[in-house]
């Protein structure tokens, strides 16, 4: 019996052996060199108490990565985005609701990054925001396969916008591809719910999805894009007039290339954001 106990004690020691491991050194941050931007579709709402924190994280990412981050804040879901008693505006849009149905965010806030399905996530939108950083890093490490550029012209008298988007694949790409063009607005002041149901009436909303010039799932670009091909698409849009909203100086144009293959979503190839008035 005594020998047996010694044997099992030794077995325990064996199982718990090799407790030390080589330390993982956190590498120094280096600014990315890629030209592939990341479309960030953030699902948010004026009743979502955790969303201001997510918006702050997204704002910091924009500051850090500049043009490589192309954000769209989608106010959707009746639970989280229905205006509060103190709200002046309803940020929900039909296109936003359709994008919510397409990407199915489980938690609020959450954000999709180039519509990539990340490991250990239930849905394409990633939550909590603590994971957004690693999702961006993972996407920034990928090779850029498409060039995209957007130029626009705005007539303040007619409020008409002319947009020209040029796309050129840098390699052969299989799949069916579409181009989406959206309008977002910055610096909208309205009510937002914070923790403990505190409503802040002068909260600043940015990147709010206002409308999509194309259908919500894009307009057809073509199938199996060939390297070096040049695709040019033009759009016209007239800015609506509304008190305190649709302020031309605060409007952004966002374009991105989506894809699908065998009815499954492909990651966004590239995206671009431009202020309507630079």
């Amino acid at each position, binding site marked *: 019996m005594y020998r047996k106990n010694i044997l099992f004690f030794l077995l325990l020691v064996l*199982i*718990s052996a090799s*407790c030390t491991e080589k330390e993982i050194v*956190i*590498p120094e941050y280096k600014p990315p060199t890629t030209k592939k931007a990341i479309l960030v579709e953030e699902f948010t709402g004026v009743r979502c108490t955790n969303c201001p924190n997510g918006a*702050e994280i997204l704002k*910091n990412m924009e500051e850090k990565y500049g043009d490589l981050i192309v954000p769209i804040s989608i106010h959707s879901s009746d639970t989280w985005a229905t205006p509060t008693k103190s709200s002046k505006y309803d940020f929900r849009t039909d296109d936003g609701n359709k994008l919510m149905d397409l990407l199915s965010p489980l938690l609020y806030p959450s954000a999709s990054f180039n519509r990539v399905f990340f490991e*250990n996530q239930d849905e394409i939108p990633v939550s909590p925001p*603590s994971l957004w950083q690693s999702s961006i890093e993972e996407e920034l490490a990928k090779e850029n396969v498409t060039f995209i550029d957007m130029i626009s012209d705005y007539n303040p008298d007619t409020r008409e916008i002319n947009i020209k988007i040029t796309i050129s694949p840098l390699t052969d790409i299989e799949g069916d591809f579409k181009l989406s063009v959206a309008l977002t607005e910055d610096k909208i002041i309205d009510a937002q719910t914070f923790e403990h149901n505190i409503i802040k009436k002068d909260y600043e909303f940015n990147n709010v999805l206002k409308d999509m010039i194309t259908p919500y799932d894009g307009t057809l670009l073509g199938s199996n894009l060939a390297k070096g091909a040049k695709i040019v698409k033009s759009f016209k849009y007239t800015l609506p007039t509304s008190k305190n909203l649709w302020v031309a100086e605060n409007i952004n144009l966002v374009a991105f290339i989506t894809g699908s293959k065998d009815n499954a979503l492909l990651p966004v190839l590239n995206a671009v954001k431009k202020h309507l008035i630079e």
Partner: protein
Amino acid sequence: MYNKNTVLYFPFIFILLISTHGFSQKKGVISGGLESNFNFFLSDTLIGATNIPQYDNLLYGAESWLNLRYTYATWEMGVRFDMFNNSNLRNPTKTYTEEGIGNWYIKKKIKNLEITAGHFYDQIASGTIFRAYEQRALFIDNAIYGLRLKYDISKNWNIKAFTGRQKIDFETYPAVLRGANIEGFIRLGKDEKIISIAPGFGFVNRTHDKKTITKLVNTIKNYIPDEQVSPTYNTWLATAYTTVNYGMFTLYFEGSYKSPEIFFDPVAIKTEFNGSKVAGKYKKDAGTVFYTSMGFVKSKLGITAEYKRTENFDFRTDPTLVLNYGLVNFIPPMNRLNTYTLTARYSPATQLLSEQAYQFDVRYAFNRKLSLNVNYSNITNLENELLYNEIFTELVYRNGRKFKLVTGLQHQIYNQPVYEKEGSESVVAYTPYIDILYKLSRYQSINFEAQYMSTKQDYGSWINLFAEYSIAPHWGFEASAMYNIYPGERSPKDKDDKPQSILYPSLGITYTNGSNRFGLRYVKQVEGVVCSGGVCRLEPAFSGMKFSVSSRF
């Protein structure tokens, strides 16, 4: 991930083994069970049962589990078929369709050694460092897919060791888990002065895969240098525990330790590179759990006292997982397990990072007819912020086998902003209740329940009535109505944005024939938090028909 195609062969091997043994002299035993739910969704925009695929387009969803277990001499094997068809169980706002072998195992006993390969459920001590379990109502199936060895060292001592990966849906998480546990039984003294001691010791190790480490490094390298922490591939947990019995006294103590590891703290303040502050960051710290319970029983009196302290003990197969996903351990809740609809409406989920709680439970039987139970529980975080407080009284009166009355009052303070991220203040609720069971004859009985919850917070005050008429052994008819008598801030609103009083009725019929049970219910259910064993999740409102079938064989 285990290969789904490979496990598809398992039922055939299972049947082959059974049929082979069926022709032999010694016959094995097959047992099993079926549990099925079929939900028919009827949209109701008023209560918020809308805007999910099941209400908008699919209209139907089902879940089913069929267990088969075969034992033959020292062999045992089991297989479980899991099916989800447009189910909203996995994610209440989405649809999930998948089917396949959700669980299989082979177990063999060779003298003192028991070998289990495949999926297994197990736990060490109360589960603070390891618990693999299934909780279907919450879509939790934390089985380990791997190998477990158990050895009986002597009549009173045994040791077990395991290695494997945690199951998720029909796959597995990448992290490797291993652990060992030794426990025994010692008897000291003679005659009436016997002290029995049941000590144990266990440890668990989790080893991350490279992808998880890369994901953590990619996040942490963007932290400012002062807040950067280095992840480790390995995390170690150990627990020491013992139960001591002496006469009328029982004492249980458990102390658990987790080596420093990366975990997410949602309230920790992170400094961004530009100096701004946001909530939530990865931290690296050691964790501890202390849990003790003391019991005293003497004829008509029973007293239990419990205390628990938890610090930084969120232990998951991957630290980036949230909600109920990937939890390797289970920390027992420290509040009374309530069963009536309204007394169970606010149930505190165990806080894994910061919790201190105690509970007293006193039971006294005045005589054979009358008994009283008083329970008091108090939960705070380690900063002494009150999270939950409950006083529960229960008076039980029995008159022979024909009549039973249960009545009492519950008082709760429930920190809804912390538990649900909802509301501006804690819910303070008073809930009197009564439950009467009367047997009309040998076969017929009537059960009536009524509860009234008085609160100014959340949905406001409720009244709930439930009546059941049973004709043994086959039939049961039930009806219930939950009415939001004084609606509150979160109640559904009318066109003028005023909270509405809404009735949530349910009607049901059950038929039992031997071990087969069928149930059909029409249900309107308010949104709420569903908790089971200290684990909770937000459950949206439901409107529709539910048909259930369960069977044991």
